[in-house]
């Protein structure tokens, strides 16, 4: 009788190995990197832009830029930082150029969203709508803080803002969100 332990365990390549393979030109490795990080990049873009179509386009642009700049990415850890920074910058640029053209992102808040995982789907949509109303700098700070669970110094490094500015954006945004939620009948602890 053959024992299952006779075969060595199949180990997935580490993130650094994937990056090294992608840098050597492996399309399979690059596609694996895309799958690994697509939820982070698309999520940041979606929560910032509040539009599936705009987020898809922006996320594709970010990965295209990654492919063209793979030589500059030093490690898997640097890759995550690079993706967060480029996505954040492009989100802010996208909103500012849309505002200059007087085009606002298509609000597809009525599309089925992350509601399935949220105990109160209406409240989830309400929070995402309120975050989408914040000013671009404050919005990216809030999105990085709560999607990626980053601390102030990490957000400051990604957004190239002083730490005190990040703290200020976060404090004011939380106050504004609490105030708007209270206006709508929700009460939150400070």
């Amino acid at each position, binding site marked *: 009788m053959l024992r299952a332990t006779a075969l060595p365990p199949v180990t997935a390549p580490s993130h650094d190995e994937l990056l090294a393979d992608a840098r050597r030109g492996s*399309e399979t490795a*690059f*596609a694996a990197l*895309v*799958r690994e990080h*697509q*939820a*982070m990049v*698309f*999520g940041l873009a*979606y*929560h910032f832009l509040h539009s*599936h179509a705009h*987020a*898809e386009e922006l*996320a*594709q642009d970010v*990965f*295209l830029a990654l*492919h*063209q700049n793979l030589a500059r990415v030093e490690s898997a850890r640097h890759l995550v930082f690079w993706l967060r920074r480029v996505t954040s910058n492009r989100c802010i640029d996208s909103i500012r150029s849309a505002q200059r053209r007087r085009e606002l992102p298509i609000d597809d808040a009525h599309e089925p*969203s*992350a509601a399935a*995982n*949220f*105990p109160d789907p209406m*409240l*989830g949509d309400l*929070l*995402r709508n309120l*975050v989408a109303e914040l000013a671009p700098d404050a919005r990216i700070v*809030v*999105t990085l803080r*709560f*999607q990626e*669970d980053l601390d102030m110094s990490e957000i400051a490094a990604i957004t190239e803002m002083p730490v005190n500015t990040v703290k200020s954006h976060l404090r004011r945004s*939380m106050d504004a*969100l*609490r105030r708007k*939620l209270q206006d709508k009948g*929700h*009460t*939150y*602890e400070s």
Partner: protein
Amino acid sequence: MNLERQLRRALERKDPAAGFDNRVMSRVATAAGAQPVTRARRNSVVFLPGAASLILAFGAAYYVQQQRSADVASAHTEQAAHDVVLALQIASEKIAAAQAKVEEITRYEPAKNN
């Protein structure tokens, strides 16, 4: 209720529509194929018309120069021929005048043999 916890739930990571990796790889392939062509095209768009214009300009300048040289040479030849004809005319007139003088002298000179 805790707002921070609710925000973490509302803003959790989100996957794009299925096939996102394929769509990215398709764009990567398109960009990789287009990039060298684009560079070559950009070079040709920028440099070739410039080079062609320069060659045409130099060619035209050379042609005009050659034409002018030919015209000048032709004018010089014509002038030289004209000068030769004039010189011959003058010489001919002088010879004719000298001959007439000689004939006149000869006519009034008594014959030495008589």
